[in-house]
């Protein structure tokens, strides 16, 4: 039975080359887009290098002061973060670091762009960077304001070329020489809170990290003992912020939150707009439209395709096919078409991801097809096949035999 359905499905697909092409194109193209999108989201949100302890971490990356007319919102000052998180009891460690900042350096008179980031010593305990050589700087080195640097593998290759080890060598950035003490695996720039080429002790910063203003270039990650500490740390931070006095008269409120990774990642910088809501809505609408359109298109194509075969429907019914059997046949045919589209889409996705990775559009971002993505893709395909097949199949199965044979 199934073999016969397969036979006729292939025959029909071959005969209706144009329809087949349009259908397959629609399915595989949509699938490719969805696969790339999910690969991207999966990478950005799901990949937790180097913050492997996300489930017990909270991120503080913004403070907003607002009054009737004025509003100021930015990352925070080193002083503010160390002072107020220092008052907290639940976090076992607090990583404080500046956001990455770009500068230029020269290798053999060739200009290269480098990003650098200042961190405290606990940063290296809270986060799990993979060291390919050397080790992180410690409290003593930070206190001494030692000119030591940890660099990314990418930076090592760009600055030093193909050498085995670089620990002990010097790297120049902003006209200062730093001694390299460690090399870490690359972090994609999409993980912008933790990405950098060079990591330095905050004490070597030329900017005044002792300034008592609230706003600055820093953020913090609070590490709890267990995921259960998350609500406690959040409450503790909220209560501290509630008692923080406003800096100037024109402001009435100070807002700052300790958020989970995803929330802080999509923070809009405005207290009244939820970044999570915006991102989730945008993605949902995008996915919805991107699957709805081809489905409608397929339903349409399928109706035409099936109605063209009214003689076949009439004959099958006359010789003993029930409406149910026919619906089943057309669904199988449709599933064959969509699964074919799914396979083509998967192949296209592999190529697309390969091309995106090779074009190096985004620093250090390696998208890969993983099983979750593949699974989602094939599931989408199956849903497609059913959605686009059910209605036309149902409609044609209701066709009266005599009418079907006359057409």
């Amino acid at each position, binding site marked *: *039975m199934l*073999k*016969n359905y397969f*036979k*006729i499905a292939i*025959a*029909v697909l071959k*005969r209706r080359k144009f329809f087949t092409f349009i259908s397959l194109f629609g399915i595989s193209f949509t699938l490719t887009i969805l696969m790339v999108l999910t690969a991207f989201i999966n990478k950005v949100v799901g990949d937790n290098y180097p913050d492997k302890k996300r489930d017990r971490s909270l991120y503080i990356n913004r403070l907003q002061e607002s009054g009737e007319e004025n509003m100021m919102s930015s990352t925070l000052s080193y002083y503010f973060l160390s002072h107020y998180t220092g008052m907290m009891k639940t976090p076992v460690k607090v990583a404080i670091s500046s956001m990455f900042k770009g500068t230029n350096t020269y290798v053999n008179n060739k200009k290269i762009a480098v990003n650098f980031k200042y961190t405290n010593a606990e940063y290296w305990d809270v986060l799990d960077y993979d060291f390919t050589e050397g080790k992180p700087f410690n409290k003593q080195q930070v206190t001494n304001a030692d000119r030591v640097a940890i660099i990314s593998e990418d930076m090592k290759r760009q600055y030093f070329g193909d050498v085995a080890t670089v620990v002990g060598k010097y790297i120049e950035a902003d006209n200062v020489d730093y001694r390299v003490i460690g090399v870490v695996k690359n972090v994609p720039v999409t993980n912008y809170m933790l990405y950098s080429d060079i990591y330095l002790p905050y004490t070597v910063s030329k900017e005044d990290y002792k300034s008592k203003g609230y706003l600055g270039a820093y953020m913090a990650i609070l590490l709890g003992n267990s995921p259960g500490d998350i609500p406690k740390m959040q409450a503790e931070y909220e209560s501290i912020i509630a008692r923080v006095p406003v800096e100037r008269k024109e402001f009435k409120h100070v807002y700052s939150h300790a958020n989970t990774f995803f929330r802080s990642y999509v923070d809009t910088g405005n207290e009244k707009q939820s970044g999570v809501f915006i991102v989730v809505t945008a993605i949902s609408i995008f996915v919805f439209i991107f699957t709805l359109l081809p489905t409608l298109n397929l339903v349409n194509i399928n109706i035409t395709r099936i109605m063209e075969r009214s*003689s*076949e429907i*009439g*004959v*099958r*019914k*006359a*010789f*003993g*096919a*029930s*409406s*149910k*059997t026919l619906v089943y046949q057309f669904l199988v045919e449709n599933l064959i078409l969509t699964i074919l589209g799914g396979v083509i889409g998967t192949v296209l996705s592999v190529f697309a991801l390969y091309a995106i990775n090779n074009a190096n559009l985004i620093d250090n971002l390696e998208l890969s097809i993983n099983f979750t993505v593949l699974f989602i893709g094939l599931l989408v395909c199956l849903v497609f096949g059913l959605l686009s097949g059910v209605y036309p199949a149902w409609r044609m199965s209701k066709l*009266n*035999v*005599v009418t079907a*044979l006359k057409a």
Partner: protein
Amino acid sequence: MIRLQNIEKVYRTDTIETLALNSVSLDIAKGEFLSIMGPSGCGKSTLLNIMGLLDAPSKGEIRIDDQKTGGMNDKQLAQFRNKKLGFIFQSYHLINDLQVLDNVELPLLYRDTTAKQRRELAAEALAKVGLANRLKHFPTQLSGGQRQRVAIARAIVGKPEIILADEPTGNLDSAMGNEIMEILLNLNRNDGTTIVMVTHDENMAHKTHRLVRLFDGAQVQ
């Protein structure tokens, strides 16, 4: 074998009502070869379709093999047609995407059969209509007479007791028409198949056991 009682068929559209069949009663015995004649539009096809349970009458009762067919649902009707009836149409209605053999196998798909059984039965039916050497052809590669023979093979492959043929020779020249007629006569004679055939050809009609004439939806002879 087939008993029609006071069959009435009314076609209703938004504006007009057509009385296609007006109180037709007919008894067809097992093994009988009956032909139906009448002018175009008199309701011959309508009658045949109702006999074949492809269409429901507006009024009246159909009994086939002493079974009432009135209350059957879609699935039961389908099964009943599959077991008892075989159809032959004027315009063949073969599936052009399928090879001759697959076309002939079609009724067996809706029965409990293995692929091997289907293959054998279909080949056998095709041999019976003289097309043993055309199994792998597609319908479009055959002449009209050959196509109708494939259609006959499809109608007999399931060994139904009744064959309903609506102008089976209507699209063919007289030589090919005679060939088809011979096949049908043999089926009736050798296998005892009950056949009801609509035709416009007096000569063909006279070769059958009985002739029924319709005029304006009513039986006149």
